């Protein structure tokens, strides 16, 4: 006799859970791997696994509201005549015009300028809108060299050689045809509407010895005035940072595996690279070994969301952080509504047409962004009003800055850059090992000599 359905014991397989079943079903139906936007969705050790040991009897705090705590951040002092000077240690990461709408780039520039920080171009070159709206603009030199030219290089405040990014280290890039509008195609010298590939290797140099000569060329072209950043996805971080420093970088940018993208293969997003928490201490160790801590700037990115994340990154040795996905969310990414200047307009149905829902969207690759951020469709782009969205991002950056200074004061620091590893402990054994800080309540650092 069959058991009553309510009495059946149904056990989901740990190996073949619902997600894996869906993955295999998709593969059988499409014969194609998944391409999507945003970053890793899997659970990873993060900065959430660390907490601060704020002041008590053994440490003396600063008064939270009235005593000054500086967040001024200077990057690129090693060789450049004009280092980057920022009011806050939070920068906007490179995101291309093409993957993002011109309005989104414009809004990010306005917000960053208001808060005294920098934005970064992306694959596809520099738009006049972002140059106008960004007081401090970092110009990316990517393998594709789409739109790369000496005039824009000379009007940049820094140049960033991109070797890789956290979402797809070693993977190159792609912009699917639906986003290759006439303007995007023109900037990239490509036919309109084609699936556009961004190379994974630079065309004019290969190994680290060549990189040193490439950096020298960029310095010569800009008369040694602006800093040269080198950005890498977090894989073999210790060795990679040493090579970048040896090649002459002023600033090294490390992008952990939580870093986002507009479009790449799911397998890269979830299975390549190491978490930001694990990457940062390796980068710091490399700089320490070369006696370059403080001389070569260090920016960390990949899943930075809160003022707490920023404070913990600084305490572990970063000079600044870079945000991408969080900045998009501040622009309204995954919002149920967009704002038309007067009122909120529900776009739940548009998410539905993408077979997703607000809060779950990662469909930047589709070009059908319901809130006008990751699109080149003029009708959709109009859903993002740069002046309105810039105010949201500015508020968000302001909160991050306030939280960092608040935490720094509570640790007794008058400068956010005085936060140090000694201010942190870990809540889990794995995060203690990755971050190189003691497990809370102990003096044990797993893996330390």
């Amino acid at each position: 006799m069959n058991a009553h359905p309510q009495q059946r014991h149904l056990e989901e397989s740990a190996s073949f859970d619902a997600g894996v079943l869906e993955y295999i079903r998709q593969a059988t139906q499409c014969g194609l791997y998944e391409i999507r936007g945003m970053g890793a969705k899997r659970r990873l050790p993060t900065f959430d696994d660390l907490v601060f040991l704020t002041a008590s009897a053994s440490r003396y705090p600063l008064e939270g509201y009235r005593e000054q705590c500086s967040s001024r951040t200077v990057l690129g002092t090693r060789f450049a005549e004009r280092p980057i000077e920022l009011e806050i240690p939070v920068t906007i990461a490179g995101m291309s015009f093409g993957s993002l709408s011109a309005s989104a780039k414009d809004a990010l520039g306005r917000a960053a300028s208001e808060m005294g920080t920098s934005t970064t171009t992306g694959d596809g070159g520099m738009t006049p809108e972002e140059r106008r709206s960004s007081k401090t603009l970092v110009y990316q030199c990517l393998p594709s060299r789409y739109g790369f030219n000496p005039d824009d290089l000379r009007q940049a405040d820094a140049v960033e050689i991109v070797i890789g990014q956290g979402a797809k280290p070693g993977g190159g890039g792609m912009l699917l045809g639906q986003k290759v509008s006439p303007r995007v195609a023109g900037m990239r010298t490509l036919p309109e509407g084609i699936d556009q590939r961004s190379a994974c290797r630079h065309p004019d140099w290969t190994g680290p010895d060549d990189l040193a000569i490439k950096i020298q060329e960029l310095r010569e072209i800009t008369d040694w005035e602006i800093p040269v950043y080198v950005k890498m996805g977090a894989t073999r971080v210790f060795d990679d940072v040493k090579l970048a420093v040896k090649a002459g970088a002023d600033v090294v940018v490390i992008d952990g595996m939580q870093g986002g993208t507009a479009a790449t293969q799911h397998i890269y997003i979830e299975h390549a690279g190491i978490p930001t928490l694990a990457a940062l201490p390796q980068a710091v160790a490399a700089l320490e070994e070369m006696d370059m801590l403080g001389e070569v700037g260090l920016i960390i990115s990949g899943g930075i969301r809160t003022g707490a994340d920023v404070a913990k990154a600084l305490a572990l040795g970063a000079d600044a952080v870079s945000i991408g996905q969080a900045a998009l969310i501040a622009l309204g990414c995954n919002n149920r509504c967009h704002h038309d200047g007067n009122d909120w307009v529900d776009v739940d149905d548009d998410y539905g047409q993408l077979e997703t829902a607000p809060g779950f969207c990662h469909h930047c690759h589709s070009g059908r962004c319901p809130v006008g951020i990751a699109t080149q469709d003029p009708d959709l782009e109009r859903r993002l009003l740069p002046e309105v969205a810039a105010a949201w991002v500015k508020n968000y950056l302001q909160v991050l800055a306030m939280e960092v200074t608040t935490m720094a004061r509570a640790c007794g620091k008058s400068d956010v850059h005085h936060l140090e590893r000694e201010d942190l402990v870990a809540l889990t054994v794995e995060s203690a090992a990755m971050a190189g800080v003691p497990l809370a309540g102990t003096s044990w650092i797993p893996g330390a000599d």
Partner: protein
Amino acid sequence: MTASRDFDLAEMSVRELNEFLHRELPELVDVSQGASIHDDDPLTRINVFNPNGGHSIAAGLDCAVEVEIHGHAGYFIAGMNKQARVTVHGNVGWSVAENMMSGEVRVKGHASESAAASMHGGLAVIEGDASSRCGISLKGGRVVVAGNVGHFSAFMAQAGTMIVCGDAGANLGDSLYEAVIYVGGKIHGLGADAREEPMETSDVEAVRSLLSEADVEGDPETFRRVASARSLYHWNADAHQEY
């Protein structure tokens, strides 16, 4: 009248030379006609002696001037050039004329890898051979190689024209977009999505005109045309890497 000025890299650094070329030279040259802003004797020629394999010589120029480099030079010579006519009387290392926007770069000897990489405009002439990946990521302009080119030349070339009077190595034009390649000698193999196409009258005329502009000898009637089959423009999962 033509005024020239000599620089000796045995006596000064590349950085000092480039700073002069970027900061002072434009003040001394009328960029439109070569007439001096300041006097009647326009500065139109720069001679660079003892390059000694130095890198980035004459990189980042934006000025209508002739630069003559007397000897062998290193990587990134005349990188990102605009307007200037740069001639190297010798061989060069990697990536000569990379990202050139306009003007002309001429190498009297041979060029190492990635010559004219990512070039957007202007004319690059290699009178000897060019190594692998010549014209990689080409975005416009004209590249003329009097000798042979190595493998993977014109890889992912997007726009512009490349002429190879000698032989082309394996994987020529791999993943080509809209750039067109003409080869006078033997082709050792085409890359993914590159195909040979019939030479039309307009192609013969294009080769004739470009050879003449580059002052390179060759019989345009003997060249073959290579362009993109455009089968990779839209990604095909069923290709199983059989490109």
